[in-house]
């Protein structure tokens, strides 16, 4: 089924309005547990879609997402926390001037968090993206761990392992899902454009992409820096959702989670990243029962730390074995929805005869 652009545009507007209404309804009526979970889902969606741009569409292998998120989280929090709050938090080692007095509104602080992460991506990219091979994976892994090390050790800037507590809660469903929607639309439009075709060409065959006039370095850098920016935004939303942050949140396992999501959802499949990203965040919360001790009929089961990741690893293996292209073969689009609908109604008519 072919839809013309004007009709599609109208459908898009209706969908966005519906989305805003849904988010508003959730924000107003849901209890704190559910809203928190829905916020975490949005953050996972942003992180998964953005790592999919780097690892899925342009065929590179970055392990830097946790590091970029840490940068976004700390850079933004340092900018929007009030001087008084900073003084309370930094009770062991005082915070250095001028960070001690700076305070800007949270929205520009979040954006700056994303930009600082993008800058870090740019600097890492300069040496790594010029050469072929797996250097990027090794360097981004190292980067991610070094960022955590730096956060732990530069106490007069980051407050070290103590992190921040009592961070004001600016993140709500409007912001988090607003950013998620923006990320999805931005990256979807990018990959549907000539630049996206160039990125897919690079991941398909670097040699012929370059022979067709595509500057490999420039385009890999584009995907990498944009991915880092959105990761920084995802990170920036975190402290002001959880109201606290510390360096342990950004261990490399966080990156592995996002990689697991894009493998299960399909490399280069945005629909998959969104759905599996949300499902992943929810199941992390639900599977928490596996790690807490409880009693099942008279049988007492001890909580085993790490059980959640074990279950998730098994799920990944199953997906790789049985559906190595990911769970979602098909991107959701209006055409797809309409053809599904018409097939469905045809079946119904058939039955009535």
């Amino acid at each position, binding site marked *: 089924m072919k839809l013309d652009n004007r009709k599609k545009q109208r459908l898009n507007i209706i969908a966005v309005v519906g989305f805003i209404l849904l988010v508003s309804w959730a924000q107003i009526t849901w209890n704190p547990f559910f809203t928190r979970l829905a916020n975490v889902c949005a953050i996972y969606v942003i992180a998964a879609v953005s790592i999919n741009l780097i690892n899925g569409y342009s065929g590179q292998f970055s392990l830097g997402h946790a590091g970029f998120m840490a940068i976004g989280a700390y850079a933004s929090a340092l900018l929007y926390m009030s001087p008084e709050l900073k003084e309370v938090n930094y009770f062991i080692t005082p915070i250095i001037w001028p960070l001690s007095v700076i305070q800007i509104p949270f929205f520009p602080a979040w954006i700056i968090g994303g930009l600082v992460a993008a800058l870090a991506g740019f600097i890492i990219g300069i040496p790594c993206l010029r050469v072929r091979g797996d250097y990027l994976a090794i360097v981004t892994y190292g980067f991610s761990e070094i960022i955590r090390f730096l956060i732990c050790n530069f106490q007069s800037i980051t407050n070290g392992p103590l992190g921040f507590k009592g961070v004001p809660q600016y993140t709500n469903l409007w912001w988090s899902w607003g950013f998620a929607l923006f990320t999805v639309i*931005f990256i979807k*439009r*990018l990959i549907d*454009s*000539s*630049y996206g*075709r*160039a990125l*897919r*060409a690079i991941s*398909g*065959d670097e*040699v*012929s*992409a*370059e*022979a*067709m*006039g*595509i*500057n*490999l370095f420039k385009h890999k850098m*584009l995907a990498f820096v944009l991915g880092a920016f959105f990761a920084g935004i995802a990170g920036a939303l975190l402290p002001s959702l959880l109201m606290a942050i510390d360096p342990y949140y950004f261990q490399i396992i966080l990156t592995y989670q996002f990689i697991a999501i894009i493998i299960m959802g399909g490399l280069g499949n945005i629909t998959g990243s969104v759905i599996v990203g949300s499902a992943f965040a929810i199941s992390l919360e639900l599977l928490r029962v596996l790690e807490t001790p409880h009693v099942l009929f008279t049988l007492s089961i001890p909580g085993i730390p790490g059980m959640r990741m074990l279950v998730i690893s098994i799920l990944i293996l199953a997906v790789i074995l049985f559906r190595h292209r990911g769970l979602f073969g098909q991107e959701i689009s209006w055409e797809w929805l309409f053809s599904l609908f018409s097939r469905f109604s045809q079946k119904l008519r058939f039955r009535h005869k």
Partner: protein
Amino acid sequence: MSLLKIDHITKQFGGLTAVSDFYLELEKGELVGLIGPNGAGKTTIFNMINGTYPPTKGKIYFDNKDITQNKPDKIAALGVSRTFQNIRLYPESSVVDNVKVGYHLRVKSSFWGAVFHFPNYVKEENYISQDADSLLSAIGLLKKKGELAGGLPYGDQRRLEICRALATRPKLLLLDEPAAGMNPRETVELMSFIQKIRRQFDLTILLIEHDMKVIMGICERILVLDYGKTIAEGTPGKIQHNPKVIEAYLGTEVSYA
């Protein structure tokens, strides 16, 4: 002045000399064949022209510019495009998207324009869609534009590669065994297609091919390579009867009706 001047290039891989002291000048509009037995160094010459790797010795000039040390993307932008002996399409992309990749080097809009659909980008994208369709219809693949490139039959994949190369609007087109894997009927179609695009796009073509019918049928001039050295050069008629060529390459005398 010639369009392409290859000034005595040599390529060594470790101890192996793949191409030795190779010289060639291509005038604008020529269609020249490059033949020789397996491993003679033909593909290596293409790889040096398009910048995949630089020659060990010697220089390459295109349009009077020294391109010896340039990267492939830069050389493509100057107007050199190619196909590959071992087909290098983007198998997971659609047929039409493969062709559209060829237009990217001339896209002027930034990625901001592409993401936010600035009017200039929309204009460029519309042009790309229309032009890609007309290229595909010229080569007879328009009906398959939505299919995945990796699923096409061999002959179609070869033609799609030519189509993608044409999308970059080259002045010089390098074709590496375009008839390989094609059946006789497809080969005849290919020959007329090459001559058609040559006229239509004002192309200069350098052609590697093992199928003598193609080489003898459409080339004005032929170079014969053996162990990295040019052993003969001339018109198809002359090459066929050159004893050195017969010995090195054809083995026994072959006649062409």
